[in-house]
């Protein structure tokens, strides 16, 4: 089953997140400049880093989809970008809170990371509407992958452009205080990054497992109750997974690729 490893990943994530929270509040030293506020750094920055990496991973999966024509890569790309969008919102909200706490404004334009984070969000937010506006599942998958590749390349380029446009570069906490991040802070930060990375991987796994289960259920329903019992596919932004079984059965001719690679039962392996 595709649920394999899900439990181990869940436990590891739970342990890592709990440990990180404990470390942040009971172990990490108070920042010399910012004091208690700096604790936000342990959630905001890892979330931002994970989000940006995830967008690039989504682009790589999309490229693999185009290269191999295996629809499972499209599903992975879709789910990674989907969860990354949620993390992006978390990153924007925590960033805004940090800005308010540090500078008294909910939004500051001279923070290039935050600004480029907003632009990247605006771009990736169009991923779902784009998918939604294409009905044919195959074309939807292909077009979405093309978009994801362009958008993935956009992430670093955009960051460079926004950073160049900032009047001065805001020092990350990594650079302040006593000229570098104290070892204990760095340790907690690495823990937080690991925890949030694990959380991201976990949510992606959950989402993929849920999507595959739904498609298996659909296939089962079709087999048990016949094609009429299955509601026709509505328009959806989510990738359509299983190719329907052919009325003639797969025996006809040496099937090349058609429907096979994307069959949910095989997606398990």
């Amino acid at each position, binding site marked *: 089953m595709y649920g394999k490893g899900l439990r181990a990943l869940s436990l590891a994530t739970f342990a890592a997140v709990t440990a990180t*929270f404990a470390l942040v509040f009971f172990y990490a030293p108070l*920042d010399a*400049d*910012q*004091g*208690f*506020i700096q*604790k*936000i750094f342990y*959630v*905001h920055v890892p*979330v931002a880093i994970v989000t940006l990496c995830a967008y690039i991973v989504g682009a790589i999966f999309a490229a693999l989809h185009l290269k191999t024509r295996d629809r499972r890569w499209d599903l992975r790309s879709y789910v990674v970008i989907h969860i990354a969008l*949620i993390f992006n*919102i*978390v990153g924007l*909200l*925590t960033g805004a*809170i*940090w800005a*308010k*706490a*540090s*500078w*008294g404004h909910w939004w500051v334009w001279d923070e290039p990371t935050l600004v480029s984070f907003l632009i990247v969000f605006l771009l990736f937010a169009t991923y779902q509407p784009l998918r939604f506006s294409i009905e044919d599942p195959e074309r939807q998958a292909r077009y979405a992958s093309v978009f994801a590749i362009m958008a993935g390349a956009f992430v670093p380029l955009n960051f460079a452009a926004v950073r160049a446009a900032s009047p*001065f*570069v*805001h*020092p990350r906490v990594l650079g*302040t205080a006593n000229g570098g991040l104290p070892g204990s802070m760095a340790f907690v930060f690495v823990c937080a990054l690991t925890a949030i990375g694990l*959380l991201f991987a976990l*949510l992606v796994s*959950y989402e993929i497992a*849920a999507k595959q*289960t*739904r498609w298996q*259920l659909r296939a*089962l*329903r079709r087999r*048990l*109750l016949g094609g009429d019992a299955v509601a026709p596919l509505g328009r959806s932004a989510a990738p359509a997974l299983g190719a329907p079984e052919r009325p003639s059965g797969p025996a006809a001719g040496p099937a090349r690729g058609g429907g096979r690679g994307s069959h949910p039962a095989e997606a398990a392996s």
Partner: protein
Amino acid sequence: MNALLAAAPALPLHEAGKYVAGAFVVFVAIVLIYVAIMAVRLQRMSRELNELNTAVEARERAEAAKQAEAASR
């Protein structure tokens, strides 16, 4: 940048706590919302599975009845 920080000195703890709590609450809340959505989905799937189960059972019962009828003849 250090000048700016100096202009906005570290907030006192009770003031800062509000914001830090806010940031962490946002993080946890979104994860919880996701869990809730997952729960709704799970419910829907288990309902659908139940439906399929009943369908299969009904079919099996009909089959058994037919066989019993054939055997009694």
